């Protein structure tokens, strides 16, 4: 393995890790989607929003950094997917725009739109954000309708190197059941994680009981969607490429083969699934720390799935319109110099994680009370 190949693998790992952390941190979105389901009174809703309100910026930042890291390490994906699947990304972005103001504005005097509107914004972000991101990631395994032609740069009349073939600019991904199933799985996972988070940080027995009851329903649906998706994924054909020539072809049971070829990744997936199940079980019994089983578990599961999408000579962003246009970590990455530079910067990540852990602990040390929720607003 030469330097460039190693760094491409390393950066795919980092981008996958950021994606996995994003899914974990989207418990904030899951919590927003449950404001009215769990919070029966205004007091309870304020407590729920205080809990997620302390964390939303972390999720938001992870999304932005995920985008930035993808841009820096695999710019052809950034160029092809964002410029092509225009409408999907714009809708996702709009969901996050309305979230960004809602926590701050919802209870302020003079907010023009009223408290309920901002809470509806949070609900929309809570449902559409995870659903659409999950659906968009589904195309990593089912493919998208784009063509890449780098030679176009030498055509002054039309120098754009990538374009979408269909007229829907990404919205068509929502019509593929496998994508939608992954989107639903992500949405339901965020709701499971939210229930577990609230269980751990609320000082209100009624609210905790609501969370426990809701957890059973969300967990059931999550397992139904996720396991169905997982089985279909393992049995499906995938997009492989020849390392030397870069030639892309279909391979039956590609993702199953990937797990067999990378036992470490298979172990991550298995451990992750067990941790998520353990977290759910802990939550059924009202354990406050169950979130810290299911959360890291979800990180491991998503990390393993994304590693399967890009490692082991797999095209991570396949094109169903032009198979040879499919993006692989080899044909879409930044140069060796840029990846090396970025790698040096990445060594600071442990320090970033350390101060995030300090702040998280400092703010979550004591459970949230109704009085605190009232005074913070």
């Amino acid at each position, binding site marked *: 393995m030469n330097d460039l190949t190693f760094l491409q693998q390393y950066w795919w790992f980092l981008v996958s890790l950021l994606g996995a952390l994003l899914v974990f941190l989207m418990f904030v979105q899951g919590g927003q989607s449950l404001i009215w389901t769990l919070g029966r009174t205004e007091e309870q809703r304020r407590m729920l929003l205080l809990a997620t309100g302390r964390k939303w*910026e*972390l999720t938001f*930042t992870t999304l*932005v*950094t995920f*985008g*930035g890291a993808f*841009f*820096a*390490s695999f*710019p*052809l994906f*950034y*160029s*092809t997917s*964002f*410029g092509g699947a*225009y409408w999907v*990304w714009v809708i996702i*972005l*709009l969901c996050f*725009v*309305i979230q*960004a*103001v809602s*926590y701050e*504005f919802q209870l*302020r*005097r*003079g*907010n*023009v739109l009223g408290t309920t509107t901002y809470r509806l914004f949070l609900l929309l972000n809570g449902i559409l954000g995870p659903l659409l991101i999950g659906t968009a990631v589904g195309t990593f395994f089912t493919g998208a309708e784009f063509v890449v032609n*780098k*030679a176009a*740069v*030498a055509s002054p*009349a*039309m*120098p*754009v*190197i*990538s374009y*979408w073939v269909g*007229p829907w*600019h990404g919205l068509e991904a929502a019509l593929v059941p496998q994508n939608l199933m992954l989107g639903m799985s992500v949405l339901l996972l965020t709701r499971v994680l939210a229930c577990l988070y609230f269980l751990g940080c609320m000082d209100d027995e009624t609210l905790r009981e609501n969370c426990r009851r809701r957890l059973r329903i969300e967990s059931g649906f999550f397992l139904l969607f996720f396991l169905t998706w997982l089985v279909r994924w393992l049995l499906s054909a995938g997009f492989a490429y020849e390392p030397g020539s870069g030639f892309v072809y279909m391979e039956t049971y590609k993702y199953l083969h990937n797990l067999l070829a990378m036992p470490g990744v298979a172990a991550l997936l298995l451990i992750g699934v067990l941790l998520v199940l353990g977290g759910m079980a802990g939550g059924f019994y009202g354990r406050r720390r169950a979130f810290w089983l299911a959360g890291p578990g979800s990180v491991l599961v998503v990390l393993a799935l994304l590693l399967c999408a890009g490692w082991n000579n797999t095209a991570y962003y396949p094109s169903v319109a032009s198979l040879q246009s499919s993006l692989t970590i080899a044909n879409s990455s930044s*140069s060796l*110099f*840029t990846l090396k*530079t*970025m790698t040096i*910067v*990445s060594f*600071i990540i442990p320090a*970033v994680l350390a*101060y*995030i852990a300090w*702040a998280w602990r*400092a*703010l979550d*040390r004591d459970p949230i009370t109704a009085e605190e929720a009232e005074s913070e607003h």
Partner: protein
Amino acid sequence: MEPIDSSLVDWSRAQFALTAMYHWLFVPLTLGLGVVMAIMETLYVRTGREFWKRTAQFWMKLFGINFAMGVATGIILEFEFGTNWSNYSWFVGDIFGAPLAIEGILAFFMESTFIAVMYFGWNKVSKRAHLASTWLTIIGATISAWWILVANAWMQHPVGMEFNPDTVRNEMVDFAAVAFSPVAVVKFCHTVSSSWVLGAVFVVGVSCWYLLCGRHCEFALSSIRVAAWFGLFAALITAHTGHQSGRDIALYQPMKLAAAEGLYEGGTEQGLVLGGILRPGADWTAGSDDRFLLKVELPYALSYLATHDLQGYVPGIRNLLEGGYKLPDGSVALSAEEMMKRGRVAIDALAKYRAASTPEEKAAALAVLRANFPWFGYGYLKSPGELVPSVPLTFYSFRIMVMLGGYFIVLFAGLLLLGQRVTRWKLVQLAVVLTIPLAWLASQAGWVVAEVGRQPWAIQGLLPNVAAISRLDVSSVQTTFYIFLALFTLLLVAELGIMGKAIAAGPETDSTSA
């Protein structure tokens, strides 16, 4: 193949301009107000006076309202490089992506982690840990500004890269040249210090409103004292870095300087236009008519600004289009036609390189490409006139920025001289309140000069807008333009309403009279 619809370029530009200008309504206040409130919290920790805590908390409340809008409008901008400028994202993504990623890792996480401690941690962490969190929030925001301005400065003056014909993109070869380019350093200092000015104007403006109403006078006078010193310091840095920035523009973007000065016919011993009125409808790409209805000049000043020599030669728009004048390195400037011709040769050589079947053919094509690559971007242009940006917009914006910059220095110095006596000068108080929107006007005008003045380039001399866009339906971009316009306007109205109510409610300090 169907050529690019020019209205797609226009709408893509309009959308980027719209989102960037909205975003820049909130960012400078975050940067400026953040420092003021951090100074006030520092005073609280040092003196132990509860008054300073309440004062800092009041400004923090306004900071939070504004910060949320900055975040909301900022996320669109980052992803727009992909959604609307996808060719750009590939052609220079190897260089441009890195600052964005570093911004996320180094700055955004710092900001988003410590702002939570700043707001929710008053009773959960020690005084000093809270103060550190406040400073780290604003340091994070400032580091974020550093990286995004590095990226912007690189677009104005691309350095540290080489074109790779195999990957058909520019690739970074010198990170230090990109991250610490002198243009980036000056741009950062100028932009951040001007944001401090805006924050200081906001604080003195709101404080003077309290004085006018006869409320919270101790709070207002204390805030004015802190903000006026800070604002004066920042305004002087802004003026100094503005001068350096002018020199950079003269060196690397002479067309922008010519447009900002309304200089059609260049020459030696050029004067700087202090004020003037351009002839409406004048053609800035050809002809020899007088293009000013009225102008007042400072003799020799433009030559000095551009060359540090009172007799220095400054090219005008006509000279830049026709070439033939002597460049600082002693060579003769090429005409726009010649540069476009060489650009087309470079693009043609790239096509030949990609199609070549033998090493000899590749080597021959590569030699031609390398020899003509400095003009590569010019090959996408259809006429020399495209190289001239909107002169009236650049000219007037430049004057607004500079004149208001001078006014702010006088304003802060005046407030410091008046001290407590400002409570007796109602007209001064009113003038300071009315100055608040002018700070935003100056800030926006500065960006108009920077961005409109460099048209038609997405990356100066390397990639024009027409070759940088995404291949989308015009109707899609039009639709999203109106969606963003409506949404951001709605949220801005809401933000102003909340700000207004919060200011009307005032701080929770004890004293309400002078």
